[in-house]
Structure formats: C-alpha cells, structure tokens
C-alpha cells in the first residue's frame, strides 16, 4: 500500500491530535475550520489543479449547500440529512446546467464567468431576505444526529468533519491516480491532444465541475449545522479567492498541496493575532514571500526538493 502511505500517516496524525492536545482551542475550534477549508481546497484543486480550469466562484456552491440546509430545516422543518441531500441535488442540477456553457470558456474568460457566478449567488443570499434572512443570515439550525447520536459538542464535530475531510482527500488521491485523473491532467496539459486521444473534454470537464461542486455543497451543509448559523459573509467573493489562494499556495495539482495550503491559510490568522494591528500585513508578506521563492507552491516545492536530495543521496552510495 505504498500509494497511500502518505494518506495513512496524515489520517493517523488527525486522529492522534485531539488525544495529544485535549481541550485545546486550536484543535477543537480552529481545527473544525481547518477541516472545512481542506475539504473545499481539495475539491477546488480537482477542478483547478488537475483539470486546469480556474474557478473564482467555488464559495457559491459551499454557500448553496449551507443555505439549503438552513432554509429547509428551519423554515420547512425538513430532516437535516434530507435537507443536506436536497441541497446537494440542487447544486448537482445547477452546476450541471452551468458547466457546459461556463467551461467552454478558457483562461481569463472562465475566471470572469465563475467570478460572476459567485457574486450573483452572494447577492442572492443578501437580497432575498424573505428566504435567506438577508445580511443577518439565519440562525438556530437543529442539531444533526448520526445513528441516533446528536452531534452536539466540538469534539463530536471534530470526528464528523475529520471523517468527511479524510474521505475527500482519499477520493482526490484515488482520482489523481486513475483513468479519470489522467484525463483531467491531459486536458490541463493540452486540450487538443486530450481530445485527439479520445477524451470527450467537455464532458470530463463538466463531470469534475459537478463533482467538485457537490463536495463543496455537502461541506456547506455540515458547516451550517456546526456553526448553527449562516450568513452571506461566509460565502463571499473574498472567500472564493481565499480558496484559490490555498490551492495555489500549497501547490496546484497536488492533493496534499491543497491540504497544506488550507491548513496554513486557516491557522496563520489565528497565530498572527499576537501582532494585533500588523496581523494582515504580516499575513500578506508571508504569502508574497512564499509565492516569490516557491512559485510551484509550498508542498510541491518541498516535496520536489526532498525527492531530489533523496535520489542524489541514493545515487552516491
């Protein structure tokens, strides 16, 4: 099982952390945000890193999942799991309908179109106040239960989000190393050659777009229940940009790159709080320095350096 050794180590680390640091704010509170961000970054990386299709509107699908859960459970009394499924179904249909026309665009035009999608959805959250509660959002979601056990503590949420996060990472790793993943990389490498090799590029692109949107939607539903509150702020254009930054910072096209990027971008603001007024400044400076010196992304650059050193060492002996 050499292929998944990295994943197993990562999973063990995630499981061990709450036992090593019990009742730690960074584990049980920040940890939950980190997990959600990892899921989103990993799902965005499928589209952006593997298939090379930029999306500046990923937060929209995250938000649609969250709002579907909030609206259906609170206003219509729907069972939380059914609401989550309904949200996912809605996102599936929406992303499927949008995929073909949007993904026909390339480069800057695709960036603009997805940006527009994100902004429109955000405006909807703010403006449709009858349904969405407007800028104030909606609070008071019912507690989610799993097999009869209510998920009502930070620690229980840790395990739920951790499981979904690990599942997303595993899916992403599996896809990367498969016929479907190679088709995505081929589209990234050369659209024309991919098509000439028999890959129906528009179909493959729209499938991964839908898949990635679905992952984000389910993450949104869980996030809404965990926070017990949804508001448009969490799903703005800025959050979409932050997700793109996570993927690029860690290393485009690498699942663990997305994981590291999401981890760093979630934990840095928390750690930098000690600098008070200079927090944002230092945060920005760190991002700039990483991108100047490690343009292929933190994780990818370090991994490449490590393999290079290793092969040199092996070559010498």
């Amino acid at each position: 099982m050499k292929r998944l050794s990295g994943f197993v180590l990562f999973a063990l680390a995630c499981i061990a952390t709450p036992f090593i640091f019990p009742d730690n704010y960074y584990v049980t509170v920040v940890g939950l945000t980190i997990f959600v961000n990892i899921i989103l970054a990993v799902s965005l990386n499928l589209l952006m890193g593997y298939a090379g299709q930029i999306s500046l509107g990923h937060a929209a699908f995250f938000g649609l999942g969250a709002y579907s859960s909030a609206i259906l459970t609170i206003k219509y009394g729907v069972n939380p799991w059914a609401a989550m499924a309904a949200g996912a179904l809605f996102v599936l249909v929406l992303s499927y309908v949008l995929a073909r026309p949007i993904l026909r665009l390339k480069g800057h035009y695709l960036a603009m179109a997805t940006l527009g999608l994100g902004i429109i959805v955000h405006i909807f959250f703010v403006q449709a106040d009858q349904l969405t509660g407007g800028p104030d959002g909606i609070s008071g979601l019912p507690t989610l239960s799993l097999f009869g056990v209510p998920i009502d503590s930070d620690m229980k949420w840790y395990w739920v989000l951790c499981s979904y996060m690990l599942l997303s990472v595993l899916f992403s790793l599996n896809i990367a190393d498969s016929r479907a993943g190679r088709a995505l990389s081929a589209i990234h490498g050369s659209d024309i050659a991919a098509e000439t090799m028999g890959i129906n590029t528009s179909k493959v692109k729209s499938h991964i777009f839908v898949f990635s949107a679905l992952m984000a939607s389910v993450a949104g539903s869980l996030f809404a229940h965990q926070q017990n509150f949804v508001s448009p702020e969490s799903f703005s254009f800025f959050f979409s940009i932050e997700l793109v930054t996570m993927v690029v910072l860690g290393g485009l096209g690498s699942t663990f790159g997305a994981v590291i990027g999401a981890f760093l971008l979630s934990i840095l603001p928390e750690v930098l709080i000690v600098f008070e007024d200079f927090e944002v400044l230092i945060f920005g400076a760190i991002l700039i320095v990483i991108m100047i010196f490690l343009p292929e992304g933190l994780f990818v650059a370090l991994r490449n350096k490590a393999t290079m050193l290793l092969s040199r060492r092996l070559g010498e002996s």
Partner: protein
Amino acid sequence: MALLDVKNLGKKFGGLKAISDLSFSVPENIIFSIIGPNGAGKTTLFNLLTNIYPPTSGSIFYNGREITRMPPYRIARLGISRTFQNLQVFLNMSAIENVMVGCHLRSKSGLMASAIRLPSVIREEKEVRRMAEKALEFCGLSEFSHKPAAGLPYGLLKKLEVARSLASKPRLLLMDEPAAGLNDTETTELCGLIRQIRDSGITVLLVEHNMSLVMEISDKVLVLNYGKLLAHGAPKDIQENPEVVAAYLGE
C-alpha cells in the same frame, strides 16, 4: 475499399484558400506521404481530417463512414490517431502517464468508480500500465518511462507522442513532421519505427519535409501545392514529375 476517402475537400481562412477541391484516397496498410512546399496546406489537411477545425466544403469518409465534422474524440474512437508538428505532449505528466492517456479508449473506469477505487479500477489500472509499457518499449522509451515529460529532450518527446498514439491501437496514424528537428541517427531510427508501425497493420499518413526519408519509406506520395493536388503516385514517379520539381525548385 480505401480506408480513407477524401472528396472535394476545401478550407478557407477568410479569403485564403488553404485547401481547395482536394480528393484522394488512402488504401489500407501502407505508408502514404503528403509533401509540398511550406504553406501548401499539409498540416491544415491533418487538422481537417481530425476535425480540429471543420472543412468549408467537401467530405471525409473513413472505412466507408462519413466523419466530416465529427467531434475529434469520436473520430479518435473510430481508430484515427495523430501526432503533432508543434509537440502536444502532456508536460505535466510523466512519460508513462502520457502513454496511459493514450490507452483512454481501451479502458473505461469512470470518475465515481475511480474515486472509490473499485476492484475493477485497480485491475484495469494494472492492465493499462502494461499496455503503456508495451507501447513505450516499441518506441524504445522504456528507460524513460518514469521521467517527467517536461525533462525529456525534443527527440524523445517526438517519440513519446508516437508511443501515446500507438497505445490507442489506431487503425490509421497521422504523423505530422515526425523527423523535424531530429539528427541523422534519430531519423534513421524513426524510419525503422514507421516501417514497424505499418508492418504491425497500421496505415500511416505522413507529412514530412525530409525528402530522402519520404522517398525511402513511402508506398505512395501525394504532392500538395497551394492547397491543391499537384501529383499523386509512387515515390519514383513523383521524383521524376517535372511539375513537382518546378514547385520545389521554383521553375
């Protein structure tokens, strides 16, 4: 019956006639070369055959079936593969992964099955790897299989494109200037490789500027000039054709 039948094919780019009223047919299992001065429309012809862009007029039949304006991936499905003049290697992948993409049509695992990695996916993955290794070996690339494509020299990338195409088990292979930029030794190797490809039962359509290569290996040669058919026949007849000599040497 001919494997490929081109009838009155035409392509205009604005006012420019890149290909006009071109008709020819390619019998099965031969090396069929298309030559002509720069700008004669050779690469355009390949792009029309694989529908990278659609023709303005005329039609293309493959194995008795019309493929004009069919999406490129469906044309590939019918058994037509190609290499590119300006390389289109997947530089973000290793050599063997490039060739494994070539096996796309010979495997079938979908996105969901791959995500949960069903046993059938694992089995197919092994099979695909074996097929890719075979194609790499055929093209003499075995030792580079795990190297990133971006790090390979030009000559090997050209071969890699051939290996990728062969991995799809085509019946018709379109090769666009495979010898361009290769040195003499590499060209001789390529010569042998193209012959081997034909002998394995694949029809080769070759666009090439290297005349000695073309004359040596082709079974048939077609000469294009300004998008029109200038001559058509066995290599020896083409060499002696005064019109062809005039087109190349400028009267």
